[in-house]
């Protein structure tokens, strides 16, 4: 009996170090941020009295709040949505047998393996008006006669940020989907072909249902990662002009360390955290229910 009990508890013993680490480095800081969001915080960072929801009301009444939330929504939807679409298509392509497939896979991983700050800085140079690579290339090829200002307005700059976000996220989705594709038994496709199924029919009835677990993982992780992504926006525009290209993460950083409104910044980070939990939880719930039904 004692032996059995030991066996029962043994897994938890092995998990203990991880649990302790998560508790100390994840759960405890989260609790501290929650506490801070209900406290008065001075400009120099000194934590004062409990002030209820005032930090939250201050945060949502900031003039830039609506713009920032709208930007964040577009940022997450476009980067996660389009990188999932492109990643899926590329995975389908590189899952085929062709010469140089390994090289293509290796190249594909570059954007993912490079630091985001470097990527964003490089893209800054590429689209620079004065001596940017893109203008130089197009001028030398004779495609354009005059340099184009690729950052002519903040709307365009935000689109560039999203484009860079998509560019660096696609490889992650591709490799997630690819791992799912490679686990599909080829006999399924052979049987479907025998039954006269076409490309779309096989894609819809075999590929998609079987890579769904991989897509679920990549989408949930992407929602979290992209929502929390800081370097691209900060490196390319710092949210300028006047927070019009900020997402929530860059906005709360600027709010805290430039505007020195630390209370509202903490409240915003809690709001972001709750939004993420809600999105990730709802998505998982929805997908898992479908899987069970399926």
């Amino acid at each position, binding site marked *: 009996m004692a032996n059995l009990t030991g066996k029962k508890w043994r897994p938890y013993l092995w998990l203990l170090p991880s649990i302790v680490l998560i508790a100390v480095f994840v759960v405890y*800081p989260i609790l501290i941020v929650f506490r801070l969001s209900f406290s008065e915080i001075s*400009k*120099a960072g000194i934590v004062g009295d409990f002030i209820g929801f005032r930090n939250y009301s201050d945060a949502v009444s900031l003039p830039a709040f609506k713009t920032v939330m709208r930007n964040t929504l577009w940022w997450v939807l476009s980067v996660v949505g389009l990188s999932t679409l492109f990643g899926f298509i590329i995975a389908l392509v590189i899952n085929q047998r062709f010469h140089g497939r390994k090289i293509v896979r290796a190249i594909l991983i570059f954007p993912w393996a490079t*630091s985001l700050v470097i*990527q964003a800085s490089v893209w800054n140079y590429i689209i620079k008006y004065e001596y940017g690579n893109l203008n130089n290339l197009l001028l030398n090829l004779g495609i354009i006669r005059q340099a184009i200002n690729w950052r002519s307005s903040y709307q365009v700059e935000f689109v560039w940020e999203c484009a860079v976000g998509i560019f660096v996220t696609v490889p992650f989705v591709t490799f997630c989907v690819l791992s799912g594709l490679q686990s599909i038994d080829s006999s399924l496709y052979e049987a479907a072909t025998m039954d006269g199924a076409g490309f779309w029919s096989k894609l819809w009835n075999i590929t998609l249902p079987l890579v769904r677990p991989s897509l679920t993982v990549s989408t949930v992780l992407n929602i979290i990662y992209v929502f929390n992504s800081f370097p691209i926006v900060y490196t390319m525009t710092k949210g300028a002009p006047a927070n019009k290209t900020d997402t929530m993460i860059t906005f709360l950083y600027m709010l805290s360390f430039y505007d020195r409104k630390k209370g509202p910044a903490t409240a915003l980070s809690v709001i972001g*955290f709750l939004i993420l*939990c809600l999105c990730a*939880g709802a998505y998982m719930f929805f997908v898992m229910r479908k899987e069970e039904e399926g």
Partner: protein
Amino acid sequence: MKKTLALALALVMALGLAACGGGSTPAATQAPAATAAPAATQAPAATEAPKAEEAPAEASDGGDSITLDVIICQYGPNTNDWFLGKGMNGTNFVDKFESENPGVKLNLEVVSWNDVYTVVDTRIANNNAPDILNIDVFANYANEGLLLPVKDYCPDDLLNDFFPSFIDQSVIDGTVWAVPDLASARALFYNVDMLEEVGVEVPSTWAELQDVSQAILDYYDGEVYPWGIDMTTDEGQAAFAYYTWGNGGGFVDDNGDWAVNSDENVEAIEYAISLVSDGFTNPNPATQTRYDLQDMFAAGKLAMVIAPNQLPTYVSDKGGNINMATAALPANEGKTGSSVGVMDRVMAFKDDSAPDQAARNEAIGKFLKFFYDPENYVGWVSMEGFLPAVNSAVAALVASDDSFAAWLNVLDSCQFYPTAKAEWDQVKQGVIAAEQNALAGGDVRSELDALQAQLMG
């Protein structure tokens, strides 16, 4: 049950990842928020980990030794070497100080400007403020009762050595809370060859500036920007100062009260925005920083730019070979332009836990005496091309470099940001936002009115 467990696990994962926030897209979870800051014109931040981060400020080191925690900002590639490497004639500041001041140890950290606010705020929040801090702002720390008055630790002879106009910038309610460590002044730099080729004189008024800009634009067929403007979050407040001071306006009125929406200011910012919309400037002033402008100037893509006195060094470091000269900032007709002085400071934090306050104050005084000793200070100021803050260094600096004399005259006549006022952070960000909104099509007057209303409310 399995579903619930999976959901719970997924949420824990989400919690964990979200908490690691500030991260990034999947590509690079390794880039934490603060270090991801781009404009890293200097070497990476705290390359020198503090030797004893956990050591209490007043650690006892066998006897009566006092250890001072010092944070110094990284002004350039030489700062680290000067304080901690071998940049001080084969030795460094810390070693030399400790050998000359037995009984006082320095736990000195060089932090990049990108990170210093985060580092200091975090330390204050954790009750671990440095003993001595070198930074630009001081009012928040003073207003919250965190600083020691300068008279408590700074010897009188040293205090009298600072330029009085500099010391005045660090006074709140009659008390001096910080001392200047160095300064820089801004002037209009222009490409002499370019202006000669076009056949124009350097402008001294706003109207002349428009004419000269039009001439340069026409002559080079748009290949050269006549005028540089930086309205980024880095330095947009400087742009506000250049134009409003050149129109008799400014951040404050004659009584020292906030007056950001004065008629003079509105006219000045509308003028600056018109330079952009007329195509006389770099195309993206909201995202092109002073360093971008300096790069363009060094590459011969920009004819005129307002820049600090270190620009010639910056240009030659970049491999540029520009025949440049300086002039006063252009002002509106009938108004006098004023140069902008930028000053950083050294301040000491209170530490109620220190067992012997008098000994601690004395140790801080020793640090300052050593820092401003002409033998050390002249090397430090000239190393990064800054201007001095104490009289005793002037003679030696002028002897070493003639151009210092001219810059010291500029420094004598320039104005400073009202950093001693508690709302300065808000005003700084507010005028930058107003400028950026105006660049995006907003109305200058209503932007500045809104900011003034916030300040009054």
